[in-house]
């Protein structure tokens, strides 16, 4: 495995994204990380996969889940179970149901883009922060990614970055290492603006 090579491929990815998403550097990490996830799995219908998170925002999909399923979701996840222990003990389904549409796509469906978009909150175990931020941040991401998503070259470029990184042994790196590598690269260039969403 060529770690330097992978890093080089991802650095080129950051440069390319700078061209497609000017002044939207907070999107580089989620876009590049989700491209890496699919590259490792050798799935290259990037456009559908990376934009799948937008479909997962569909409220119809989550609003009908039974109470038991929601309780199982919260109590089945160690970290969420700890955070929402009081609500679980009290059987406060109102709060759990309100948090479910934000947390289920990230922790239940494990969407790579959303996981990266809320990495800071996930790392600091600020799950309630995700619930508060979810609607505004995903809506901002949807607006900001739209112009690039309409350009077929954007997807072609992402595919090439993913394929190059995969051919150099991306799959041998730990998920955490890949995330840190991309974050370090995104932070590197002086010209790049903050890596957190403007409204966050």
């Amino acid at each position: 495995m060529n770690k330097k090579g992978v890093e080089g491929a991802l650095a080129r990815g950051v440069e390319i994204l700078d061209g497609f998403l000017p002044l939207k550097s907070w999107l580089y990490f989620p876009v590049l990380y989700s491209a890496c996830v699919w590259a490792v799995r050798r799935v290259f219908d990037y456009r559908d996969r990376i934009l799948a998170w937008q479909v997962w925002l569909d409220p119809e999909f989550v609003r009908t889940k039974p109470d038991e399923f929601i309780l199982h979701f919260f109590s089945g996840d160690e970290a969420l179970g700890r955070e929402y222990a009081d609500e679980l003990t009290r059987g406060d389904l109102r709060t759990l149901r309100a948090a479910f549409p934000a947390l289920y796509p990230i922790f239940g469906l494990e969407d790579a883009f959303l996981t990266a978009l809320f990495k800071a909150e996930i790392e600091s175990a600020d799950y309630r922060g995700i619930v508060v931020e979810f609607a505004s941040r995903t809506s901002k991401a949807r607006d900001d990614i739209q112009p690039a998503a309409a350009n077929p070259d954007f997807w072609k470029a992402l595919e090439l970055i993913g394929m190059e990184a995969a051919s150099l042994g991306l799959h041998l790196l730990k998920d955490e290492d890949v995330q840190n590598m991309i974050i370090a690269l995104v932070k590197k260039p002086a010209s790049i603006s903050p890596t957190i969403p403007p409204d966050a």
Partner: protein
Amino acid sequence: MKRKLFPVAALALVFILSGACLPHLRKAKQFYAEGQDQARVFRTAAAVASWKRALDEAECECRRKPSAQAFTIKGLAETNLGRWREAEASFLKAFSLGYEPGEAWASDVALAGLAASFEELGLEAPALRIYAQLLDKSAFKPVLMTAAEKRTNLVLARAAGLDPEEKSRTLAGLTKALDRLLDRDFACGLFHYLHAQVDGHIGDLRRSYEEAVIAHELGLPSEKISRDNDNQLIYCYDKLKETLPAAESKAFASAHSGWTKKWGWRDARTPAWKKD
């Protein structure tokens, strides 16, 4: 000479006019389809522009040669542009004109569009009736799948606010409707997925598990539904293991292990797409 020329000119005029009429409907369909393609890849502005052009062409066709198909396309374009009231009127006009033999698919599409308009306008009861009608009668699979998903979601959302007895009756009715769909098309993974969801609400976790297994085997239309189906399997597995008698629980765990091995899961509760 003039007399001789008149029929030829008239014929040419009829030909030109019919030629001019025909492209409006064809163009409307073409622009509408383009809009759908653009919307699928989130090119919203381009999609809206295409639907507006489809609407212009459909309106031309409706003025020149009103037909059920022309009003259906007009209604579909209006639906996508969020003009629900106009869409409702267009679909109703389409039905008043009547469809030609062989246009049953267009009639079903118009009905599904009408139901979506009703739903958006907050008229859930008539929307539900239309979806139920489509589920009984339509032979057009895309419409059938949309109607099944929409109706199931609407009924489940409504059932949440009902008292237990009423809820149980409502869910039983929904199960019967899904059973009928499966009788007609057992190979549709989406119908099994919806059945598994409803069984989960009823508390029949054994049936829910079985339906989710069949859905997994037959394939599902999207990653979203596929992952949610896997989560339903895990939920049922956990609950059944807790509640089944010891011997039965062991046999169940062994059968589950067989399926998950076949699907490449890392263990009984970890599908391949889940992180360790």
